[in-house]
């Protein structure tokens, strides 16, 4: 008799790089150690790209690929996001119908605070992103929320990043609320899990595949991934938010992506930004 076995992932599953030796190291709520994760990630790239200074990872692929760096530096001489930042400033200061402005919703009137996002909000039991609070500010003041991916929200976020340039990311995972660490762990797990028809994790492309040509593209190192968002992408021809990029990259594994600002993408942002602690805000950025 023929035994028909259900078979599947096969080859794809073997493509996991096996780094771990000890079981249970950092993959449970009891063992996860964000600071150890951050150091391990830095060490991974230090070995992989010994010539790249840590501070330079905020420049994404250009920190490791000299060929495209020259082009990019030229682009940055006349930054394509300049107009968007000006427009963002105007929108930021334009009073709502009730006379208030965005400044009323944020610490320090919203100036120079990008480095503190995303953060764990204990009252709400969730990760809050800057874009989320921009929309909450609108709704609190009787305005309609903006669409998440591009347009006004990206410009306002770009202006707020601009006022925070060179401030150092300082994401905290408060110890008095275990749910914060759980959110971090969810984000980390998402980043390293293989999925989609191509059976790829974020890490497959951005760690093992960093600066390795995949079709026509060179994936950047994951360190500093978030520092320059929102970003003006030549491919988009406009400014887009981090979660727009998450959606696109999630799709690159041939998965159906999640919604922007969904719990999982916010947890992912929490994890990724924690990994970039110590690096500076350099948003908005320009990328190919």
């Amino acid at each position: 008799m023929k035994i028909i076995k259900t078979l599947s992932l096969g080859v794809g599953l073997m493509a996991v790089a096996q780094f771990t030796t000890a079981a249970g190291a950092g993959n449970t709520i009891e063992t996860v150690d964000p600071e150890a994760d951050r150091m391990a990630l830095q060490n991974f790239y230090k070995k992989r790209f010994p010539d790249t200074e840590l501070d330079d990872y905020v420049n994404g692929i250009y920190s490791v690929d000299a060929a495209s760096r020259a082009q990019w530096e030229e682009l940055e001489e006349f930054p394509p996001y300049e107009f968007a930042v000006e427009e963002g400033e105007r929108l930021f200061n334009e009073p709502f119908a009730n006379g208030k402005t965005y400044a009323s919703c944020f610490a320090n009137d919203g100036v120079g605070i990008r480095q503190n996002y995303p953060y764990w909000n204990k009252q709400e039991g969730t990760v809050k992103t800057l874009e989320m609070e921009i929309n909450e500010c609108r709704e609190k003041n009787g305005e309609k929320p903006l669409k998440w991916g591009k347009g006004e929200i990206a410009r306002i976020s770009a202006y707020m990043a601009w006022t925070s340039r060179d401030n150092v990311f300082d994401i905290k995972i408060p110890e008095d609320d275990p749910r914060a660490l759980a959110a971090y762990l969810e984000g980390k797990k998402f980043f390293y899990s293989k999925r989609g028809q191509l059976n790829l994790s974020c890490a497959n492309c951005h760690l093992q595949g960093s600066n390795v040509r995949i079709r026509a593209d060179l994936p950047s190192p994951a360190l500093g991934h978030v520092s320059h968002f929102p970003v003006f992408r030549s491919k988009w021809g406009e400014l887009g938010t981090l979660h727009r990029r998450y959606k696109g990259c999630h799709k690159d594994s041939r998965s159906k992506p999640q919604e922007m600002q969904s719990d999982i993408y916010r947890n992912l942002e929490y994890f990724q930004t924690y990994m970039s602690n110590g690096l500076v805000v350099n948003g908005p950025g320009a990328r190919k």
Partner: protein
Amino acid sequence: MKKTLLLSAAILLTPTWVMAETLKEAFETHRAMYGKDHTFTWQGKEYSTNHPEELEARVEPTQGNATALLELAKAENKKAASVGYEWKLTRGLLKNAEAAIKEGEYQRALNLAAQAKYHARIGIEQHAYAEKNWQLSVPQ
């Protein structure tokens, strides 16, 4: 359907390869070399290179059978979505299967539904695999 998984093999990001051949690997190799309807032996037992969904599509191409398989595929895809592992093209396949039924093309509908159901099943397996193994690729 048969080409989909070979793509992942093409992306050779892998520094370490498991040497011993597992059943999954044997299946993939034989499937790639001989296509469906082939029998191979692994550790003394016989296996088929067919995916279970391919067999499910081998029924009389009637409206009833096509609709039944489509419903199963939809349910499976819902399960995949509920764990966050829905694939990008699956809904399109389901839609096309639905359209094929309307046009009376029941065999085509069966094939599309089978493909969608396969996507969903593998998505669910990926999730289970990731739950156990995701930490293997975290640098230490």
